[in-house]
């Protein structure tokens, strides 16, 4: 199956992989930030912790 994937970027590797890396980083940041906020404020709204 994996033989069907083409990961041989050749001379474009220097552009393609940074683009994918940047996308992964930004999306990961947005996901983590969103989930962290939801967790934090849910706790502040429902739990004993006082909102700052």
């Amino acid at each position, binding site marked *: 199956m994996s033989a*069907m*994937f*083409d*990961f*041989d*970027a*050749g*001379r*474009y*590797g220097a*552009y*393609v992989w*940074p*683009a*994918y890396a*940047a*996308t992964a980083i*930004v*999306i990961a*940041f*947005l*996901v983590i*930030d*969103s*989930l962290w*906020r*939801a967790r*934090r*404020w*849910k706790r*502040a*709204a*429902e739990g004993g912790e*006082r*909102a700052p």
Partner: protein
Amino acid sequence: MFPALANPARFMAFSRWAAPLLGVIAIGLLAIGLALDFRAPPDYQQGYAVHIMFIHVPAAWMSLVVYACLGGASFISLVFRHPLAQAAARAAAPLGAGVTLLALVTGSLWGKTTWGAWWVWGDPRLTSVLVLFLFYLGYLALDASLDDEARAAPATSILALVGLVNLPIVHFSVTWWRSLHQASSVFRADGPSMPAIYLAPLLTMALAYMAGFGALWLVRIRAEVWRRRAQVRAVRAAG
């Protein structure tokens, strides 16, 4: 916002299952999209760099879609003073800024392979997206610098609407600017002649981005609702 969801309690009940569901859909679509992406052969013109298109073009589309959502939510917030709409607008802005930043970075990398330059001012789309990014930054800056939340909400909504009206004008003006400078014609990623082998991963990735945005948007609106509740609690506790 759908009328049925205007009630925060109902919204929380709905988003409780809708957000994870959209998240799972997004991950599934992302997996399929990436599989289709890397099975696609190199383009005869762009070579392997065509793979950047599959993440750049959806990001560029989403930058507009999110701004439209931001503008729509701001409009409802301003006209009907609905707190949930304000939460939706506030929640959309960082996501929009993030995806617009992605469109810029990947677009620049793609441009370097296609045009041989990191940035081509003659490309109206690139320049419009840059201005759009500045609109997002302005929104976030205004939101951050108004201390009184009750006053920040209408102000940011007005700004979002002003931006929404201006966006087409900015695009038109940048396009006109290009015609004056007669920049070299640009590869059209979204041209009608795209072969199916490229169209399939592109559309799948676009749907994945859309679902992912939907999921994160709901999560962030939930966070906003909780934050408001926490503030009300704090005010009550203070007497």
